[in-house]
C-alpha cells in the first residue's frame, strides 16, 4: 500500500484515503461545439500509456476531498512529486522522461 503526499493536507498518508482519477493536464476544449468528432474523441478517450513518469490526477477522497496532480513512475510505482491542481507538470527523472519522449515520437 502506497503512501501518498497530499499537497493540500501537507501530509504523507495511506493510499486507502485516495482514489486514482486518470491522466492529468487534459484541458477541456473551451467550446465543445466547435470540435470535430475526431478532436472530441481524442479529448474524451485517447490517453497515454506511459512506461516511465506519468502525470496523473488523484483525489484525496477520504481526506480533504481535493483533486491534485502527481507524477508517478509506472515501472517502479513510486511517486516523484505531487502538486496542486493548477500547477504545471514538473520534470521527472531522466530515465522516466526518456520513455515519455519515445512514446510521444
Amino acid at each position: 500500500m502506497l503512501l501518498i503526499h497530499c499537497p493540500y493536507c501537507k501530509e504523507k498518508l495511506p493510499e486507502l484515503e485516495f482514489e486514482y482519477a486518470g491522466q492529468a493536464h487534459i484541458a477541456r476544449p473551451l467550446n465543445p461545439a466547435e470540435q470535430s468528432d475526431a478532436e472530441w474523441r481524442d479529448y474524451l478517450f485517447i490517453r497515454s500509456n506511459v512506461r516511465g513518469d506519468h502525470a496523473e490526477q488523484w483525489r484525496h477522497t477520504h481526506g480533504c476531498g481535493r483533486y491534485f496532480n502527481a507524477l508517478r513512475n509506472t515501472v517502479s510505482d513510486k511517486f516523484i512529486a505531487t502538486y496542486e491542481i493548477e500547477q504545471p507538470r514538473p520534470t521527472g527523472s531522466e530515465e522516466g522522461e526518456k520513455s515519455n519522449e519515445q512514446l510521444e515520437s
Partner: protein
Amino acid sequence: MSNLRVDGKGRINRDKRIRFTFDGVSYEGFEGDTVASALLANGVHLMGRSFKYHRPRGPVTAGSEEPNALIGTSRGGAGRFEPNTRATVQEIYEGLTTVSQNKWPSLNFDVGAINDKLHKLFAAGFYYKTFMWPKSFWDKVYEPVIRASAGLGVSPSEPDADAYASRYLYAELLIVGAGPAGLAAALTAARNGTDVVLVDENRELGGSLLSEAPASIDGKPTETWLSECIEELSTLPNVRLMTRSVAIGYYHENMVGVAEKLTDHLAYPPAGAPRERMWRIRAKEVILAQGALERPLVFDGNDRPGVMMASAAQTYLNRYGVKVGTAAVVMTSHDSAWYAAFDLVDAGVTIAALVDVRSSVGDHLLSEAQARGITVKTGHTVLSVAGKKRVSGVQVGRVTGDGKVSDITSVSCDTVLMSGGWTPSLHLFSHTKGSLHWDEENEVFLPGEKTERCHIAGGGRGLWSQQAAFDDGVLAAEQALTSLGQTAKTISVDVDGDRAGSGIVMEELPSNDDKLLAGHL
C-alpha cells in the same frame, strides 16, 4: 512405540505431557513439541504421501520450509478442519487431532502408489492422453477416480468457524527474524531508544541459537545469554516482540504484512478469541534477518521417509530433544552437516558413514570426526536409498574422475541426513523488486539493488557463522538508525565456539544411471 528422546536436550517442557492423535492413533509429546517432533520422538517418519504418485513421505525439515509433512488438523467443531498444515510448524496441544493426506485406503497401504511403479507410463500430462477413450468413461470412471486421488489434502467442507483480527502498526524499525542477526539488531536499536518491532515465526525467539547453540556468548552459556537478551528487550517500552508471527508480504513504502497465530497452539482458547491477527506494519526502516535455508541434494530416493536435511536433524535434537534415528548416514557437500553429525554422535546416534562429495575437507573436521569414531568417506557419494516406507540403507560409491561412481557398497541405516549448503532466505526482499546477484565465489544469490528502505543482515547476506551474523545485525541496525537520523551506540556480541563452514554446490550427485532423477512428485 520407540522412545527417541534424549535426556537433557531440547527446549520442551518435560513436566507437561500432551496427548494428541495422528490417523486415529494416540501419541504423547511435550509442551513445546510440533506434530513432527512428537511423531519423530515416537519413531514415526511416514507422515503423508505425495499427491501424484502417492510416494511415502516424511518430514525433511524442522521448520516452515517443509514441503512433505503436510497433514490435516482438526481443532474441534465444524469449520475447524484445515488441510495442508505443516507438521513441522503445528504445535501440539492436548486433544489435537491430525490426519495424514493423499492416502487410500490407508497411509501404510496405498493403492495409488502403484502409479509410482508405473511412473514411466504416467509421464507428465498422462491424464490428457490416457483417459481420452472410451469417451463415456470420462464422467463416470476416470474423473471421479482422478479427482479422488489428485490434489493436496481435502478441502474443508464447512465454512470457517473462526474469527480473524486485523491491526495497523507504525514503527521506526521493523526486524524480521529473531536469530543472531535479528537479536543483535534489536538490541542495538532498542538500547538506542528507537521504536522497534521484532517479529519471528517461531514460538520462541532465538532462531539458529535454539538449534545450534555455540559454546558461549559474551562468556555466558548461550541459553543464559538468550534469556537475558529477551528479558531486556521485553522490558523496554520502545520494543514490541511478536512470536508465532510470519511476515507474509513486503508491500510498497515499507509496509510488511505479518500473520500472527493466536490460538492454534491452545487446547482451550479464550471464548471469542480470534484465531489469527493480520498486522499491517509500516516501518520507516526494515531489517530482514531471515537467515538461510539448507539445500537438499539430488539422488535417487531422496524423498524417502528417513531422508532429511542435516540441519533439521540437528534442530530436532537440540530444540526438541529428539533423535531422528538411531543409525544415520550423512551425505553432504558442506561443512555444516559435519557439525550436525558431531552433535548427533554426542547424543548417542550412530553415524554409519559421513559421506562428503568433496575429495578434501578441513583437517579440523577430520580430526573431530576421528575423535568420535565416525567413518568418513570423502570423495564419495550416495547413489540410492533402500527401503520403502522408511530408509533401510544406502548405496555409497567413490566418485571417479569422469563423474561416474565406482567401488559401490551398501551401508545400513535408518536415517539419511543431507546437506547441499545454504541458500539465503530472500523471499521477502524479492517482494520489493529488489534485485539478486549471483556470487560466483560462494555460489549463492545475494541481495543486490534495493527499492525500499531495507537492510539485509546475517545468513541473508551469505554469512554462515553466528559471530558474523551478530556483527552483521549490529551493522544493519547502525545503518538503519543513521538513515533515521539517530546516532547509534554500537554494541558487540562475542561468540565462543563458533562453527563457521564452507562447501560446494552440487546440481545433481554423480551417478552411473543416466535417467533423470528429479521429478518424483
